[in-house]
């Protein structure tokens, strides 16, 4: 995503039948796009209707997910554990990825000479080309054992001893758990946050940097007192975009998060689900209309949450671009 302006091309009205046909064709293509988007949203809403009607807010707040009615339990779909898993793993990913991305962005933009900075940024941004399932398999066979055998026991022996915070790492280290899910997501969203942050930092007007420099600031001080404060909003926007990506990510998380427990507790070392992984794991079993509707509603919830952060990110960055356009160097 780049900061760009609306340019209007020179053109003229349709003059002959060729023009009319041409305009119709490209207009049709564009209309398909709009219809596709609208249809997308409408279909998701319509097909979740049944689930929404049956469970209402309980879908979001309830924790029981029973596709089968027995004498004791009714059919219930409460997605709270999935929402919880999504929130927790995405936040972990954000917390881990943002310092890495920001640190790299700062190094590449402000410290490294361009013959070093550009290739380094390129390499990190290559991470975005790696397919999600590749992250999944690496996560499953490489990261999970490391987490289970090295990292998590280590965390338990250090943070685990601290009161209150220790609850975050309580319980047996599964390896396939929320924490590992967060770590994999962090690597996946790192390039997104990095490339956007780089652009934002590059757009800080030179006059701001020179103003701080002229007061006798060191390089780091120009960064921390002039550049980063100015870029603050945009960087938050970059982080939000990363968060949106983490929320929507499916395969890598599915393969490392365990997909078993629906317990909502304080420990990050429990297996869990995210909304996306729940969909991926259960859709084949959606044999009843209500089950089907519940899965679609899950998709709708995911869409809404991811979109909120996407749009929020875009708004923040537009605001920064507007300000920068006004006080141009």
């Amino acid at each position, binding site marked *: 995503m780049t900061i760009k302006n609306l340019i209007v091309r020179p053109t003229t009205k349709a003059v002959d039948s060729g023009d009319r046909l041409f305009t119709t064709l490209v207009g049709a293509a564009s209309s398909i796009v709009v219809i596709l988007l609208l249809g997308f949203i409408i279909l998701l809403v319509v097909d979740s209707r049944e689930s929404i009607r049956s469970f209402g807010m309980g879908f979001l707040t309830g924790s029981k997910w029973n596709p089968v009615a027995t004498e004791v339990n009714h059919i219930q779909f409460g997605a709270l554990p999935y929402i919880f898993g999504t929130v927790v793993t995405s936040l972990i990913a954000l917390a881990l990825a943002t310092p890495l991305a920001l640190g790299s962005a700062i190094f590449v933009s402000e410290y490294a000479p361009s013959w070093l900075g550009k290739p380094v940024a390129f390499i990190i941004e290559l991470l975005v080309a790696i397919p999600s399932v590749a992250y999944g398999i690496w996560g499953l066979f490489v990261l999970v054992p490391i987490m289970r055998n090295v990292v998590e026991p280590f965390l338990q022996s250090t943070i685990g001893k601290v009161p209150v915070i220790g609850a975050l790492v309580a319980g047996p280290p599964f390896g396939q758990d929320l924490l590992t899910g967060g770590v994999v997501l962090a690597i996946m969203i790192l390039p997104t946050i990095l490339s956007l942050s780089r652009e934002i930092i590059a757009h800080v007007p030179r006059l701001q940097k020179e103003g701080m420099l*002229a*007061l006798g600031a060191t390089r780091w001080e120009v960064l921390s007192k002039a550049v980063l404060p100015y870029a603050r909003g945009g960087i938050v926007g970059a982080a939000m975009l990363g968060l949106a990506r983490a929320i929507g990510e499916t395969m890598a998380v599915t393969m490392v998060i365990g997909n078993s427990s629906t317990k909502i507790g304080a420990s990050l070392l429990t297996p869990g689900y995210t909304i996306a992984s729940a969909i991926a794991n259960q859709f084949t079993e959606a044999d009843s209309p209500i089950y089907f509707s519940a899965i679609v509603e899950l998709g709708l919830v995911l869409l809404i949450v991811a979109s909120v952060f996407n749009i929020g990110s875009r708004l923040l960055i537009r605001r920064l671009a507007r300000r920068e356009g006004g006080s141009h160097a």
Partner: protein
Amino acid sequence: MNPIRPLADIVRNRTAPENPSANAGRSITVRSLSAFYGKHKAIEDIDLDIHPGVVTAIIGPSGCGKSTMIRCINRMHEVIAGAYATGSVLLDGEDIYAPDANPVRMRRRIGMVFQKPNPFPTKTVYENVIAGIRLNLPKMTKAGYDEAVEKSLRSVALWDEVKDKLHSSGASLSGGQQQRLCIARAIAIEPEVLLLDEPCSALDPTATLKIEDLLFELKEAYTIVLVTHNMQQAARASDTTAFFLADERHAGHLIEQGPTQDMFMHPKDQRTEDYISGRLG
């Protein structure tokens, strides 16, 4: 009618320049200064004397290297990738281009005001003023900062206008106020020199005059160098003027330097006279 006369009148009508007081700034001696942007030589072999207690104006047509010149004085020129300078600039006898000189520490002693006002938008007016103090000086008490803010803002005649909005964003002021804020910010750390690079080019005439009046008072405490493309401004506001010129064959160089009165009424070089009378540049 002699086109030089109106300018000469402006110069004559100002009150006589004050005598520089004993603790007014420091002198700057530029010797053999050349500055490059990569392979391109922007200014060549400049010898310039800048005295404390007076406003020295650097004038010349656009592209003559005035900005480059002034940016060499506080080593801002080399901040641009590939740019460097050769020669020496002595600040009170000390060469700021000496191999062991620290440009970061130098810049603290030399304040700069830029062409476009550049207050820090994420900081309040208050924080803008003390930005340099916060940076360079050890921590002060709140009262200390308050005092510094008021003192600086008063010296730029901004205190009354902004004393009720000290905690609004630095960017919320008008253009002229912003520039005076930048001057306040620059002098808050009590530099020895104040460099102003076409400070009024983005401002309206009223704001411009306010700043010129300011310079008149500030020169008692600081050595002031003013780059301007506006000859009337040089005539109004400066005591000494240096005229720069560049062309296809020559990088920017110093044509003539002297008391403003003399330069405008009896320029020694024909090119100076051409420029001042509007025939050149």
